[in-house]
């Protein structure tokens, strides 16, 4: 268990272009099973590009990505999901014209076995009771915080081994953020490995165990979260002095 030979997710020297912009300039990160790793960096540093490259929405020009030993760099996004990687995209991107239940069903799209899916849906409703109350409503009617819960719930329905979250706190009230982060922590404790991208570095360091700092397409720093939150440069740049 402790002496793992290869990391759970192994990103090696990837270069990704976003249109003509060289967005990722040789990035390597590793995530071990069960960890919660955070990725911080300013706007335009390449955080979302990195996540989208892992989940297959973007293809790297160079480098390799291995998940449990399987190469991901040439797989289409929908196949990567079936390997066990789910992404909660930036801006939530829920299906606003589908009902909440249908959104969750879409999360279970790749799965077979009605009973297991129904059970998971019940668990999700336990985790997010608000969603249960409104399950027959069209998702576009949800508030911002509820939409974020739905986006997370929808990703959980894929039964991910690795859950990638792209700025789950964006645009939410502080109380809701706390709620969402508690949920993320719970999901991690229940066994899912988590890669969390956050603008709010303080929050991220609070719940994650390791962190990477991304600066203009490169990894500037890597350390455990305690050290990162004490780091002078980070304090100045991301924690407001």
């Amino acid at each position: 268990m402790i002496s793992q030979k290869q990391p759970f997710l192994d990103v090696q020297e990837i270069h990704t272009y976003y249109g003509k912009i060289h967005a990722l300039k040789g990035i390597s990160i590793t995530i071990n099973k069960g960890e919660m790793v955070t990725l911080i960096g300013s706007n335009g540093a390449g955080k979302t590009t990195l996540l989208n490259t892992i989940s297959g929405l973007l293809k790297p020009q160079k480098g390799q990505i291995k998940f449990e030993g399987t190469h991901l760099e040439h797989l289409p996004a929908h196949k990567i999901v079936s390997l066990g990687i789910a992404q909660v995209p930036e801006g939530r991107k829920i299906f606003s014209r589908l009902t909440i239940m249908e959104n969750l069903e879409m999360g279970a799209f790749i799965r077979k076995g009605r009973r297991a899916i129904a059970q998971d849906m019940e668990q999700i409703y336990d985790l997010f009771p608000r969603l249960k109350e409104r399950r027959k409503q069209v998702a576009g009617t949800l508030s911002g915080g509820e939409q974020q819960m739905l986006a997370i719930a929808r990703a959980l329905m894929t039964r991910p081994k690795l859950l990638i979250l792209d700025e789950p706190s964006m645009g939410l009230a502080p109380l809701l953020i706390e709620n969402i982060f508690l949920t993320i922590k719970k999901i991690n404790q229940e066994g899912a490995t988590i890669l969390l991208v956050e603008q709010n570095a303080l929050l991220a360091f609070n719940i994650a165990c390791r962190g990477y700092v991304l600066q203009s397409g490169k990894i500037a720093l890597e350390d455990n979260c305690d050290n990162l939150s004490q780091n002078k440069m980070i304090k100045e740049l991301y924690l407001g002095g």
Partner: protein
Amino acid sequence: MEYLLNPEILTAQIINGLTIGGIYALIALGYTLVYGILFMINFAHGEIFMFGSFGGFAVLTLLSNNGFSTTHPTLSILCAFAAAILISSALGAILERVAYRPLRDAPRLSPLISAIGVSIFLQNAMMLFTRGRMQVYPDIIPENFIEIGWLSISCFQISIILGCLLLMTGLYIFIYKTKTGKAMRAVAENREAASLMGIDVNRIITITFIIGSALAAAAGVMVGIYYTQINHMMGFIPGIKAFTAAVLGGIGNVPGAMLGGFFLGLAEALGVLVMPAQYKDLIAFGLLILVLIIRPKGIMGEVVSERV
């Protein structure tokens, strides 16, 4: 204007309107389904309808030549529908793969031009094949009339209206109740998010083209049986009319296309009561212009609020 109040004429025109309206609606659904998912107008859709009609024609001609259709008329017609649906679906899927998918990320005008090119190509291909001649659907079932009091309704019309309603109900159930249908709606709303759910977006797009084409094929066979004469240009006007119907209902909106089709059919049929029949097309396209000016979103066009 006396005849306007004549219930016999009025009812006859309403039934005519529903018949042609149902056909417009079936074709319109193809436009709206594809638009909903790709935001492009498949201007070759009228030709997919035309190919379906010819597919049905080929099978019916074959079956009537060997006498099968005299002994099994209903089965023959079902075969014609099946063949038409097969041909058009295959054509739709191929078109998407060859003419539209390579242009998926191109500016929006490019697939539109590609579609017009495909449309001209298919018209000419069929013209070469039929040598440009009008073809006549074989007479398999006599056109019986059902008499209810003073009312006399063609069984063809009734069958077409019922057939259209049946297909639309089927489509509705498919889109709202099945997993694939829900995935279609998910892809229509957000392609990236759908692929993050493990949905194979390309597969869903192909299915969308297949379904739209199959509905057009059914409409093609109905038109063949009802009007009996078909030719390689037959897809053009119904294609534009159905497009009008789709816009009327709110392009991208499935119930809207159904409603728009019937609305347009009725408007045309009732319009000829007050103006010469040659002005039928004027009514259709006049309506299109009116809707575009007054309510560009169409009758059922919706505004979806997205929260940030």
